[in-house]
């Protein structure tokens, strides 16, 4: 499902800064990982690798059965459609309504419009945004935007779901609902990676954790075993 072998990532060409060094880990289909580490440890860069926003500059990255470092550009869009991503800054399209933002992955995948409307309506109902379906992102609160972003990430039933601080703009109730959704998707076979600084969240939902420090993987094991010094700060 996800396998990294000696993966490195360097921005800005051969002379650029290396932000990830010699990463090695594997996650089977249906796996769950917390992604922990202090700011600047490389969590976002690793998520960018896993969303195929960048390719590794060294090593081998196997993702959903494809060797990313060797895949052609034409192969990557189909892979990306099997990956859902919840961004910390939501990354909604400002000129599209909440409905159309959520519908975007389905439309890009060429789903029939009738099915798109039914699925989006159901998803908006789930995130309690039915009445805000017509609203533009600028007309939504931060929490509502976050829920739209979550709905967009999961509506295509991705094989791999990545989330970067997904509960950062949610109240406790919404955060609880999101974690329940992530666990449910995970139980149904979606692999999930959640990057967070929230030790309370990790403590409430213990599982396996990857801990990064200065671009290196320093822990791959149970979240309960993460040394305090390595936890998110």
């Amino acid at each position: 499902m996800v396998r990294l072998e000696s993966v490195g990532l360097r921005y800005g060409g051969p002379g650029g800064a290396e932000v990830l060094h010699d990463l090695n880990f594997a996650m089977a289909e249906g796996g769950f990982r917390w992604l922990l580490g202090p700011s600047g440890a490389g969590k976002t860069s690793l998520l960018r690798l896993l969303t195929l926003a960048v390719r590794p500059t060294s090593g081998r990255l196997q993702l959903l059965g494809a060797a990313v470092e060797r895949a052609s550009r034409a192969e990557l869009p189909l892979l990306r459609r099997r990956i859902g991503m919840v961004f910390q800054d939501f990354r909604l399209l400002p000129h599209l309504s909440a409905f159309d933002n959520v519908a975007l992955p389905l439309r890009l995948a060429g789903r029939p419009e009738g099915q798109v409307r039914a699925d989006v309506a159901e998803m908006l109902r789930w995130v309690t945004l039915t009445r805000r379906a017509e609203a533009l992102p600028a007309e939504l609160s931060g929490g509502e935007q976050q829920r739209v972003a979550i709905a967009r990430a999961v509506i295509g039933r991705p094989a791999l779901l990545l989330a970067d601080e997904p509960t950062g703009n949610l109240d406790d109730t919404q955060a609880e609902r999101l974690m329940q959704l992530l666990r449910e998707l995970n139980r149904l076979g979606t692999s999930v990676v959640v990057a967070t600084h929230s030790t309370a969240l990790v403590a409430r939902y213990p599982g396996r954790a990857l801990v990064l420090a200065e671009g290196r993987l320093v822990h791959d094991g149970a979240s309960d075993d993460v040394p305090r010094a390595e936890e998110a700060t």
Partner: protein
Amino acid sequence: MARSLRPARADDLGLRRALSDRLLPLLVAAMTFLAALALAGAMAAAGLAEHWRTGAASMLTVQVPMPEAPAVGGTRAEVVTHALGDTLGIATFRRLSAAEIATLLKPWLGEDPGHLSLPLPAMFEVRLSGDPFDATGAAARLARAAPGTLVERNGAWLTRLADLVRSLRACAALALLVVAFVASAVVAVATRAGLAARRDAIEIVHGLGATDGMIASQFAERVMMLAVAGALLGVLLVLPVLLGLASLAAPFATADAQPLQPAQLLRALPPMLWAELVSLPLVAALIGWATAQATVRGWLGRLP
């Protein structure tokens, strides 16, 4: 949910705002205007040159020195008249009157060439029928009937007219190439501005699995629509100009040398020019679509 009920191929990237429907159509309209003028100019010049060429090619001038001197069977002018009448390929001919010759010579000899007592030749204006005509043989036969008779074809003019037509066509082709290049550059700049304005949106849909083709098509369709709108505007603007020019040029191309009546104006433009005017929006659409596709695909090449 009125805003949600939109077609699947709607404006996901927000290009209606990023690629404004003001500047690009106006620039394409200007390019179309220039292209139409170049096409019409080349066609009109070629048409006039052809008109003059066919006129010049069908005319001969025959000079008979000492026309009243005796020859076998009459005066030299009379035997040349008989010979011209027997020559195949000649439709009509006539001998210029003394007054017409005096008018022709007026720039050189003044108002009354007769007072100089110069032996003026007889001049025949010959119009060919269009059938095969042996100019060399005819000249030889006339010279045998009245030695010294000269047959003058307008060959030098024909060569110059042919050169003129070729030059005009080359100039028009060059002008069209320049216009197409500038139009393409304008579209590329507008597309790049749109890419810069929608960079975030493009990266988002790219990350959601949009292919290069999907993104490039949205740009290309928007640019193509704007280019067609601009080209139609350009054609509408250039049409009155072309009709006005056609009205002014009509007397040079017709025998009666009369200006066109308003009802004749639309027929004043040749069918080929109408076809080219109709094709200009199509060409603009093609240039816009292809340039936008190439520009966007080139830009997307920087993304993984």
